[in-house]
């Protein structure tokens, strides 16, 4: 199994840390992982993205141009990454702020209203965990228990009290995600 994922959105949406938790979860499940961010000053106000690869084998190139799954959280990223999903692959997106919805027919498309849900839950910080839940529901490549272990590893000890809330958000996300009907 090798899963190549791109997560892309605005700088402030927690894109990088979502990728990090996912990667850490992969480690907890005994897999090989890589996490490669876009970096540098262009992140300022602009977009951020990260490539996460989770695999049973040693990962050769951490840089890939086509993905099994794209998780897309703003319009710019939609414009840039919809086309990079492999035929038969998966695209998950939050429709909030999206003006041009995805149109490919050769991939599976899911939507998740994570922005709204996070606002409902009164905590915009868990937005990315909701999205992560959505992904895990579509692609259950790591078990929830390992995701929780991944959270423990990637959060500093003083934030461990937030784990239950994050777990909740992931579970909500798992429910929330739904196939997009074009």
């Amino acid at each position, binding site marked *: 199994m090798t899963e190549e994922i791109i997560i892309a959105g605005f700088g402030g949406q927690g894109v990088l840390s979502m990728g990090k938790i996912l990667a850490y979860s992969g480690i907890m499940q005994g897999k090989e992982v890589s996490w490669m961010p876009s970096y540098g000053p262009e992140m300022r106000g602009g977009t951020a993205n990260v490539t996460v690869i989770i695999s049973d084998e040693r990962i050769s*190139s951490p840089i890939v141009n086509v993905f099994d799954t794209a998780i897309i959280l703003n319009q710019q990223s939609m414009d840039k990454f919809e086309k990079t999903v492999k035929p038969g692959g998966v695209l998950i997106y939050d429709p909030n702020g999206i003006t041009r919805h995805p149109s490919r027919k050769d991939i599976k498309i899911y939507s998740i209203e994570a922005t709204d849900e996070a606002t409902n839950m009164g905590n915009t910080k868990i937005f990315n965990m909701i999205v992560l839940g959505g992904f895990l529901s579509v692609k259950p490549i790591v078990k929830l228990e390992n995701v929780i272990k991944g959270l423990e590893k990637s959060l500093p000890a003083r934030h461990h009290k937030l784990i239950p809330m994050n777990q909740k958000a992931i579970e909500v996300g798992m429910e929330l995600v739904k196939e997009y009907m074009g």
Partner: protein
Amino acid sequence: MGELRLMKGNEAFAEACIRAGVDAYFGYPITPQSEVLEYLMSQKPYETTGMVVLQAESEVAAINMCYGAGGAGFLPVTSSSSPGISLKMEGVSYIAGAELPLIILNVVRGGPGLGDIQPAQSDYFQATKGGGHGDYRLYVLAPSSVQEMADFVLIAKEMAFKYRNPVMILSDGIIGQMMEKVELFDPIPRRTIQEVEKQAPWATTGKKANRERNIITSLDLDPLKQEQHVYHLRDKYSQMEREDVRFEEISTEDAEYLLVAYGSSARICQKAVDLAREEGIKLGLLRAITLFPFPSKRLAELSNQVKGMLAVEMSLGQMVEDVKLAVNCRVPVEHYGRTGGVIHSPVEVLEALKSKIIK
């Protein structure tokens, strides 16, 4: 088994420095390697191992702080990225001339000039042939994973003392910025000052009554003596070539064609090898781990086996010269690589192989 962590290459390097018992780090921020200093500052090793960590006023100051530390027998580390490394060239030449231990990390970005901050491999010449003046060489290691960003600190430490020579770790924005699983080696205690004095009896730790004074210098106004000194350096470099060449071979046993690459390009080439094998092309990869000393001997051997070699590097073609010099015209050698911060894909590498070598 050591501790498992998900880390950036830069962080793994920094953590490994602490664990390896490095004595001091002096550096100046620059993308894409600022995490080295940031990580060190967040760990405060000066409170645990006693390692000195200081943000210098410039790269020039940092390399000269390293000169001071190395002269006293300590193991200093500095890191930067391309433009900052260029500023260190005078200091590097001094340190090589004075024969001091040092680890320098270059997390290469696109150039020339300010260029961009994306990954590149266009500082190969500078690292291997002498960006500074005079006849000197660095021992150059090219990690291609986060794991190696950690592990190579230990090799670098060993080589820095074995040869009393600066060691460069030539990395790039990919390896520096990406996170991978790392198994961290167990911490090695920093040497006490007594141990430093024992390991480096030549160092300037204060003249003891029982020994002559120690002098650290790269100056010899008498050219005949200076020449002898340079010959002594040359002998060290030859010894490196004999004893400490490092490389890795992937699918070379039956290879008819060979990719030669290092660092993150080697990772991409690994995938290209997979793709080629899927198509039935017997492609292998020689990954140079030491860029100086270069694995020329092994390449010469392989040139009797394969039909052609493609040197793949993210530059206009620099390592390719060393490949050509190694294979002695026995097989065609070509270069492929994107540059300026653009990363070539495994597919592009394979296409290049087909068009330039297989034909």
